């Protein structure tokens, strides 16, 4: 059990947090991994070509993983690989080689649900840390104790656990706890939903989930043989689509609970999303840990998160069982208000000329915003744009096109440029 002084101590008359949680970010490919690390993630989770739960994501080859690990090591960051399918017999051949490959690539740990993979990793790739996936829907301290006795270093709790439950688990079992703080989530207990299997013959627990929970249904009651509609003509249909998780307001409480790792969901999300969310939570965690007793959430952090939000967000179970306001009914279009317009490759201080890779259409006269870990956000109006060869162009209209234009303040490689829609 953690004592209070293991979480915070008085230094020079001021309380500071000494147990800073890991900020864990998702990355769907090597570029996103580099961005996540550069923007302040302490660890990144990625998927390989097999055994992970996002069969539609780009996912990493072993070579890309090794390169990602090397990049992360320079920052002192860790790489975890999701191997959290519930395997079928046919997935057993090849598992040993795969896990050995991960170990050789230098990844730090794997996130696992199936005991088959836990025990196989222990046997053939003992250097890999093993973390229990949220797919096990672990929701009580006694089950956490079981997995500790099985030798796991860390457990990811069910997304259905509350702050009070996490406190009790932390008190009773000495094991690292990882919880989700941001992103999309299942509305079912993870691992206990096979809607996809039944509706589309795609195996949700092996990465085939087609998100049937986000579809609309009509609710009826059967009375004898009569079907009675439980909705009126004007009612929105029955839906069970959850709002995305957003626990920015609860980060102080999570840090005081001694939670070891705070996890952002979204291996399918863009680098703009990863950069924005990671940088905001980096600021929140750093600010709170430096001076917890005078900490206030800055409005600009909340605004920043909104700039990449896909959906409305809510705190879900951490603060109690979610009601209807934490679900989405009726028409709910994409919420995104900003486009990712460009990725900074270089900046010449003398000429104030940025070299930028285009990620979305922009043209002279557009108001754009730059952000990144080295700078405070600023906006400016785009002036003349030149292509790589120095020819003036009327707009940056080609994806991944290299363009140049003047930027008034200093920017750095990996900084991003966004544009309001």
């Amino acid at each position, binding site marked *: 059990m953690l004592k209070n002084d293991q979480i915070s101590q008085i230094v020079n008359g001021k309380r500071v947090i000494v147990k800073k949680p890991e900020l864990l970010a998702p990355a769907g490919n090597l570029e996103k991994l580099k961005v996540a690390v550069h923007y302040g993630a302490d660890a990144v989770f990625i998927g390989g070509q097999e055994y992970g739960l996002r069969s539609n994501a780009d996912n990493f080859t072993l070579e890309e993983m090794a390169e990602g690990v090397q990049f992360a090591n320079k920052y002192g960051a860790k790489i975890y690989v999701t191997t959290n399918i519930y395997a079928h017999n046919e997935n057993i051949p090849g598992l040993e080689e795969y896990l050995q490959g991960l170990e050789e690539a230098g990844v730090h740990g794997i996130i696992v*649900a199936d005991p088959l993979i836990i025990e196989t990793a222990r046997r053939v790739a003992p250097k890999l840390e093993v973390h229990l996936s949220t797919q096990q829907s672990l929701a009580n301290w006694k089950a956490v104790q079981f997995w500790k006795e099985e030798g796991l270093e860390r457990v990811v709790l069910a997304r259905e656990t509350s702050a009070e439950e996490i406190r009790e688990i932390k008190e009773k079992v000495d094991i690292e706890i990882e919880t989700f703080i941001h992103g999309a989530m299942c509305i079912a207990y993870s691992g206990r939903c096979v809607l996809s299997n039944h509706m589309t013959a795609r195996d949700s627990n092996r990465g085939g989930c087609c998100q049937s929970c986000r579809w609309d249904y009509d*609710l009826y*009651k059967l009375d004898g043989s009569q079907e009675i509609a439980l909705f009126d003509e004007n009612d929105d249909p029955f839906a069970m689509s959850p709002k995305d998780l957003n626990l920015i307001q609860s980060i102080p409480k999570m840090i005081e609970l001694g939670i070891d790792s705070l996890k952002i969901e979204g291996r399918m999300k863009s680098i703009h999303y990863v950069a924005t969310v990671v940088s905001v939570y980096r600021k929140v965690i750093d600010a709170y840990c430096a001076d917890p007793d005078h900490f206030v959430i800055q409005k600009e952090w909340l605004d920043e998160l909104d700039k990449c939000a896909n959906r409305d967000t809510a705190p879900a179970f951490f603060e109690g069982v979610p009601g209807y306001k934490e679900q989405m009914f009726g028409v709910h279009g994409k919420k995104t208000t900003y486009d990712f317009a460009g990725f900074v490759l270089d900046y010449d201080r003398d000429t104030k000329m940025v070299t930028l890779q285009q990620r979305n259409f922009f043209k002279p006269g557009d108001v754009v915003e730059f952000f990144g870990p080295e700078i405070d956000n600023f906006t400016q109006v785009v002036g003349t744009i030149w292509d790589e060869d120095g020819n003036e162009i009327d707009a940056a209209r080609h994806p991944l096109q290299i363009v140049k234009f003047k930027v008034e303040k200093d920017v750095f490689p990996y900084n991003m440029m966004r544009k309001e829609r």
Partner: protein
Amino acid sequence: MKKPELLVTPTDVSHIHALAQAGADAVIVGEQRYGLRLAGEFKRAEMAEAVEVARQHGIRVYAAMNAIFHNEKIDELGEYIRFLADSGVDAIVFGDPAVLMTVREVAPHMRLHWNTETTATNWYTCNYWGRKGAKRAVLARELNMDAIMEIKEHAEVEIEVQVHGMTCMFQSKRSLIGNYFEYQGKKMEVEKQKYEKGMFLHDKERGNKYPIFEDENGTHIMSPNDICIIDELEEMVDAGIDSFKIDGVLHESDYITKVTAIYRRAIDLCAGNREQYEAEKMQLLEEIEAIQPKHRPLDTGFFFKETIY
């Protein structure tokens, strides 16, 4: 030839008499405080009675403790398990490792059956739970016949397979029916209706009707069809599958009893007189079709279906 156990789900104590007479070898009972999606609610008094009735008929009783537990119930698990052991139940069905841990502490000789519904998908993991103390694994319903055969071939634990009835597709901790009523502004309906049975979700695109209900464990959504493979039992009987389960959740007692009797005949013939089974099996299927509620079509589940991912 070894006959698989016929395991069924009674709706109340008196139903156990009827099921035993219809040929059940074992029943699974419990209360929603600890068990999931049960055909009937058996509080402690009924639980004790259930064991007595089962004894009279010489059949076994398994207690359902397969809920996903949160901290609040952990402290009472030991006392409940002791009660079950004292009552003489033959096994406890669990999914959450907290139950396994508690059984080790308070009733180490209690027989355990591992059942998480969806995650028993390979033979290694079935054997893993066997090494942790389970004597039986209940296979996920989303497996096909070949996968079931391969698991049985490698299994060091007994293997239970559901052969009839609806299956669970989804469990949420959220009050999804109640939330919908609240969203519609029908606050009064929430407490009145949300625990009612008989509701379903209509999926217009697929033409399916999925039963949905709420209880202490959250919201459950069930398969649109009832599995029925009464005419396809040969392979599993030959392979020595240990238990065939008929899940009667959300069905009438009388229906469950009749289905039990029909499967009793099918199993006896399939194991004892294969020629007669082959001659009669389509008729047995027709007998079930004749009593099938019209809103519950029959199908063969995932037994002959491939899933991709």
